């Protein structure tokens, strides 16, 4: 068995201590501890459905070593949606625009969109596509997902958010 490590970190604004295996990725560590809004897709950094914010930056949690997150801060889609206006608005926009079909890519898409918009992302379809280029969706053809992010970006630009 791999060595067991105790890590202290902040997840969705709450300080927690987790026991993780030395080689475990952050994705598994989160799901083992009931953060089920983080989805497991390819687990090799291709699909992006496991995207979370690590110290404020969107990363694929399957390519991050869980033990290395000791002392760092994680936000998942659910936590962001419950505590930040921006992500809550993105989630609503996904529903309004019909951006959710099977829904498996949605948590990762919402986190990637949050990262884009909180760093001053503009309502620019090309830039939005680039921002979510690490997140695969096999249902929507991306059009409605881009529509949703565009809608929120427009709201921010017009001072509505």
């Amino acid at each position, binding site marked *: 068995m791999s060595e067991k490590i105790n890590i202290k970190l902040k997840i969705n604004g709450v300080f927690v201590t987790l026991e993780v*295996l*030395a080689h475990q990725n952050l994705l598994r560590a989160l799901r083992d501890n009931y953060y089920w809004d983080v989805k497991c897709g390819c687990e*090799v950094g291709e699909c992006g459905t496991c995207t979370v914010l*690590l110290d404020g930056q969107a990363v694929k949690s399957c390519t991050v070593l869980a033990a290395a997150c000791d002392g760092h801060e994680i936000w998942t889609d659910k936590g962001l949606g419950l505590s930040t206006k921006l992500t809550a608005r993105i989630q609503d926009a996904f529903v309004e625009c019909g951006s959710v079909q099977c829904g498996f890519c949605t948590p990762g898409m919402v986190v*990637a969109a949050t990262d884009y918009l909180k760093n001053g992302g503009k309502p620019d379809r090309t830039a939005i596509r680039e921002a979510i280029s*690490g997140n695969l969706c096999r249902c929507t053809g991306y059009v409605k997902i881009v529509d949703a992010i565009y809608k929120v970006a427009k709201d921010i630009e017009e001072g509505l958010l």
Partner: protein
Amino acid sequence: MKEFGYKNATTITEALTLLDGQNARVVAGGTNVLPYIRSGKYTDCRLINIRDIKDLNFIKEDSDRITIGACVTISQLKKSKLILEFVPALHQAACVFADPTICNTATVGGNLASASPAADTAPALLVHDAIVFIKSLNSSRSVPLSEFFKAPGTTVLQRNELITHIEISKQKNSGFIKLGMRKSMSISIVTAASSVTLNDAGIISSCKIALGAVAPTPIRAAHTERFLLSKKPDDDTLSALIKATNLDISPIDDIRASADYRREVTPVMVKRAIKLALYEHC
């Protein structure tokens, strides 16, 4: 059953001590290492986390050189004004590197150490005369990047050594171009970087060309460089470099493209990289 250990290093010396004489592997961003663990390429070793070592994370400017710490992420490169101004090829490579979420964790040291023939930062760094600074517990050395790669996945790095930083020379006329199957998250079919200086008469007075994914390692294209020297970079010259370029490369058939296709397309990429260096300043 997997048997891994883990240690967090907070200083370079601590990391080197942990690496010395141990069955240990360095983890920085983890974008290569985690898939290696999953596929079984890495088994039963102690993982040394160097992500939080502050001395490995800096971009510094001297009079004619720029120094980049090994743990600088691709996102940091993308956002750096220094890199944009003085190392345009590296900026352009960072912009087409994987996707934004991978860029937030992947490091420049890791991209070099994993020694993929298709590593996107390598050709850009090669045309800027990159020197890799390596440390072990009892010694330190520096190796030009052109001598750093040995074979696919193999470098001159020993198991007890760590890349600390990379030094590159400033050059405003450089460019990088990548050909992949799609715009994002693609492993390159061909990458080309160039750094070109013209004299007052518009003749190439110095020229460096580097290529990725067309040889066992990222390479400097010596024949192409010699061919271009003292010529005008007009369309006739750039269309005639096909022979020289084909002497430089030894492409293979793989899942992404055939060797024949790579032979056809590499000279075109070289041509575009040169035009990018000369006419499209960032």
